[in-house]
């Protein structure tokens, strides 16, 4: 199932969701098999910001029925640290690299996009305008005109594919997707996590160090599918669907709803090679479909 994702050649349509797979830590844990048996068709790196960030105070995780709330808070080495330390390692991966960036102002995003896009190792960029853990993420991605202004600002800086990652915590994701498309985005990806919260069972205080976090996993799958279907009907650029994908059937459903590619997030926490399994299951479903269509 070779897939052309707005110019990025993928061997199959299953990639990782940003922030849910750290290839460098995986190399330490699993060794070089990570390179020879990489489970995704592209690697999307965790969101980077201009300055280094420590992320949110722990606890950062809370398990919900069929899901997870995280308040990681985008820890990262910052642009310079990423380019110097991480990029050379990630360049060893056998798949295209998509770098996810987030800025607190349009100019910050512009700086990030310009600096990242000029590196040959980078196949494409994803703009995180949707992280519910950081104030500005919510604002940019929930509003069509904010999104348009951002994409217009950074679009001239690179000819590499620009993916805009939408937030589900919005009244009208299709409107935001259209705004991104009209401003020159090459693809949109969705859904990011839904704003969620849990209380400490004993004290009644917020459990997460940051107070609230984002919900992911099977619990949000039906919501993701609805938004992916709606957005796919509203734009002509490719859609990367994600949210609770655990099986080839889930990936297949997102693609039936219009997604060109599918990202696996939380499912990787249960199995680092969930992406590879999902790819096999997906291709088997597609094969069966071709057979039953008499092709």
């Amino acid at each position: 199932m070779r897939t052309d994702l707005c110019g990025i050649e993928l061997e199959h349509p299953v990639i990782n969701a940003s922030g849910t797979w750290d290839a460098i830590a995986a190399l330490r844990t699993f060794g070089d098999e990570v390179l020879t048996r990489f489970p995704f068709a592209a690697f999307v790196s965790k969101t980077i910001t201009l300055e280094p960030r420590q992320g949110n105070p722990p606890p950062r995780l809370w398990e919900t029925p069929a899901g997870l709330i995280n308040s990681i808070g985008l820890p990262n080495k910052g642009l310079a640290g990423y380019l110097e330390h991480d990029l050379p390692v990630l360049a060893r991966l056998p798949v295209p690299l998509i770098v996810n960036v987030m800025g607190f102002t349009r100019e910050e995003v512009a700086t990030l996009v310009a600096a990242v896009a000029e590196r040959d190792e980078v196949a494409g960029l994803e703009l995180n305008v949707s992280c519910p853990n950081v104030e500005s993420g919510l604002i940019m991605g929930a509003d069509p005109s904010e999104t348009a202004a951002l994409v217009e600002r950074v679009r001239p800086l690179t000819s590499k594919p620009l993916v805009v990652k939408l937030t589900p915590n919005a009244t009208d994701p299709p409107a935001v997707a259209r705004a991104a498309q009209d401003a020159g985005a090459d693809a949109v990806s969705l859904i990011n996590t839904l704003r969620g919260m849990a209380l400490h069972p004993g004290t009644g205080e917020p459990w997460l160090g940051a107070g609230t976090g984002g919900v992911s996993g099977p619990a949000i799958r039906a919501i993701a599918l609805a938004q992916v279907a709606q957005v796919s009907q509203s734009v002509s650029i490719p859609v990367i669907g994600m949210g609770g994908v655990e099986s080839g059937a889930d990936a297949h459903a997102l693609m039936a709803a219009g997604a060109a590619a599918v990202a696996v997030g939380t499912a990787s926490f249960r199995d680092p090679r969930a992406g590879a399994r999902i790819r096999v299951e997906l291709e088997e479903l597609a094969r069966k479909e071709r057979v039953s269509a008499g092709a």
Partner: protein
Amino acid sequence: MNRTVAPFDRRLSTVTGAEAIGAYRLLRCSDEGPEPRPGQFYMLAAAERWGGGQDERPYLPRAFSYLRRSGGELEFLLEDVGPGTRRLSELRPGDGLWLLGPLGSGFAAPRDGREPLLVGGGIGIVPLLPLHTSLSPPAEVLLGFRDAGHAAAAALFDGATVCTDDGSEGQHGLVTELLDEHLDDHVEVYACGPPAMLEAVRLMTGERDVPAQLALESGMACGFGACFGCVVPTREGYVRVCVDGPVLEARDLEAVPAH
């Protein structure tokens, strides 16, 4: 290196034994994986019906230090504290068990010819057992438990000094009180136990400038560095317990977080 690289696959193992050890539960399973280093851990999940317990959980796998490893078998010791450990405690021989590991970085050899001093509290004794059996001559072992029911697991160790909170087995008191008696300038402390105990060990060894390696726990989602959820504060910022630990130098830590 205190790290055995893990097979890049979650693997389906078979439960070969399950029995009570006092208040804890011993779980034995087949394993073809490589030899782990003392202090490393595995992510476990029951192959069937992982979920549907209290509050519809567990959903994610759970982290467990290995207790023993021999003859193609791995052993774990579990304390039932919630839906995940409950489900694992119900497993019977023949049941399937998902296994990922060995993970993380284990204990390092004592430096400068120091004598290892092992200090364990409650279920925290687990990673100390493979360390203990790897040491020769045998190290001093101090173990603290709530009560005699839990202290039954001390029998896994040869010649451990035991205390209980309620005095129902061994000495009456906290294991940190035992540690206080045994702490001198020739030892290196290896400790695992509840956060309050580890925090006390960190402070005591820090004051006396004795090196201490602490095997930490932390809420985990993945166990292989993917989620950034399991961090603890160190003097260099947050580090991930699952890839930079679970064994961390006491002197690097800012604090042992309460959860």
